[in-house]
């Protein structure tokens, strides 16, 4: 187990280096210098600017400096807002994005697992078809459509919930969390159903039934742990999806999180900000994938541990 964890951590390092270098080189390949768009600056000022953003050094050295900066937690200054550093903007936006992702995950797990269980208990009946059809709708309805429609119904027509904001008025976190979580609720419902159906067909469940245990005990005490394995493996990719989903949801609901910063930076062509957030998001996603792999390996000893071939 320990070997597996160490192996997976070691595997993540080259991936991170590839991400950082690729991002760095891509940004440097962007047509025109970073200050071309500004009004003409004097050679002296340009020299100072280049110095401030460390653009005079040879490229490999710049990359090396950038990476050692990141290790110390310094992503450099923002191009567009010279007084603010990228690290500062990440620090402001990240807690909000995490909170949003957390609520969304809660919504996804609660609705998804419940729906999947309900469907798996009586497969191929209405109790199965109805939640699974709703799940299919959830998968086919992208968040940028789901969000505005929810706002239209519950915010504008019924006036039950606020249409935007984050923490300004009561209940303004409900719609964003549901919007972001719904797609994943749908996937989790399908995965739970599949996993439970497989487990419920196994011998030890038949034994439990033969012993006369009530269905409730069988489901919750015996089947659930195995049946939820596919869901656990899905958590890593789901968190990655939640983070990129936050781009849209934070834009729709005007939430000042990291996702909205990222989209704005992409609009403003704030190169250092894009570079910093790209790398930061990548680190997060790689980290969560690692965690979910480890949890899945822990829950299922039969899973093939990559390190041992």
């Amino acid at each position: 187990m320990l070997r597996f964890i160490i192996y997976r951590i070691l595997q993540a390092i080259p991936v991170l280096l590839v991400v950082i270098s690729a991002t760095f080189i891509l940004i440097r390949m962007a047509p025109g210098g970073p200050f071309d768009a500004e009004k003409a600056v004097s050679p002296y000022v340009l020299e100072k600017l280049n110095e401030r953003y460390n653009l005079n050094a040879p490229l490999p050295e710049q990359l090396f400096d950038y990476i050692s900066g990141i290790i110390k937690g310094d992503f450099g200054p923002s191009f567009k807002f010279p007084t603010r550093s990228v690290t500062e903007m990440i620090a402001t936006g990240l807690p909000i994005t995490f909170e949003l992702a957390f609520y969304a995950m809660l919504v996804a797990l609660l609705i998804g697992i419940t729906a999947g269980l309900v469907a798996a208990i009586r497969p191929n009946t209405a109790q199965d078809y109805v939640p699974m059809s709703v799940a299919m709708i959830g998968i086919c309805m992208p968040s940028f459509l789901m969000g505005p429609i929810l706002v239209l119904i519950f915010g504008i027509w019924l006036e039950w919930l606020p249409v935007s904001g984050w923490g300004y008025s009561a209940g303004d976190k409900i719609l964003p969390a549901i919007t972001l979580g719904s797609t994943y609720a749908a996937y989790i419902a399908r995965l739970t159903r599949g996993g439970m159906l497989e487990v419920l067909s196994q011998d030890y469940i038949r034994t439990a039934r033969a012993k006369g245990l009530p269905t409730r005990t069988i489901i919750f005490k015996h089947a659930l742990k195995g049946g939820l394995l596919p869901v656990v493996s899905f958590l890593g990719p789901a968190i990655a999806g939640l983070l990129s989903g936050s781009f849209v949801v934070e834009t729709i609901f005007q939430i000042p999180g990291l996702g909205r910063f990222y989209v704005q930076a992409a609009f403003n062509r704030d190169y250092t900000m894009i570079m910093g957030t790209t790398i930061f998001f990548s680190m997060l996603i790689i980290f969560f994938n690692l965690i979910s792999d480890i949890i899945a390996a822990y829950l299922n000893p039969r899973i093939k541990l990559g390190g041992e071939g």
Partner: protein
Amino acid sequence: MSSLDPSGEQGRSLWQDAIARLGQNRLAMLGLYLLAFMVIIALLTPWIAPYSYETQQLDLGAIAPNARHWFGTDTFGRDLLTRIMYGGRVSLAVGFIATAVALVIGVLWGAVAGYIGGRTDAVMMRIVDILYALPFMIFIILLMVVFGRSILLLFLAIGCVEWLTMARIVRGQVLALKQQEFIEAAVVIGLSHWQIIYRHIIPNILGPIIVYITLTIPSVMLLEAFLSFLGLGIQPPQSSWGLLISYGVETMEEYPWLLLFPGLVLSITLFALNFLGDGLRDALDPKASKD
């Protein structure tokens, strides 16, 4: 039922079997018909669109759906149905072309890795593993920012990230095929490697490839709509369903139909493709489990 075959019964190929199975799957067939309908409409749009795509009738403004404008008009007085039809051309084109790019790269990469095997295979699949761990949504946005928001780049960028799964599937199939006698026979009679890949391997892995294509197209279309919605994909005056939805959101309070119709059309198309993909998977590979 006139049959010249004395036994009175004709053998059915695997493909005929699969088509028959698909035909019995009502949802999948519905998906197929819906998709065919969308594609035909998209192809014929320049000739059958009820109004001009660009002409603005500012005095008309946004009017609700009625007999003359079935889907209503937008704030510039442009017919929404016409705009959805033109937007569909872009959305579907992105779906098909980006999937084609992914198909070419993925099949070649997977086939070469699986066919050569050994160390080449290990290195090639390691590269796929590393790329797999990258957050691609973010990389596509990065590419769009760095190289400008052109539609051609969008095809390439999306295609370049969607080929990984294809490469994995193809490699697995090729590895399994390579063990079989008819491939050995082909080697023995002296066919070149390319002939073997082209004539014997690729036709035999068509099934999984077709299934994966139908499941890739909707995810690509979703990606395009996502980017366009954020303003990082298709740029005006071109249009796509994602872009129409993002315009619809701006004015949904007063003119909800501007959001609902493009959204409905996009969702129905994604539905159709997903059902067709599921149906094809069941038809071509009866052993594969449903979820």
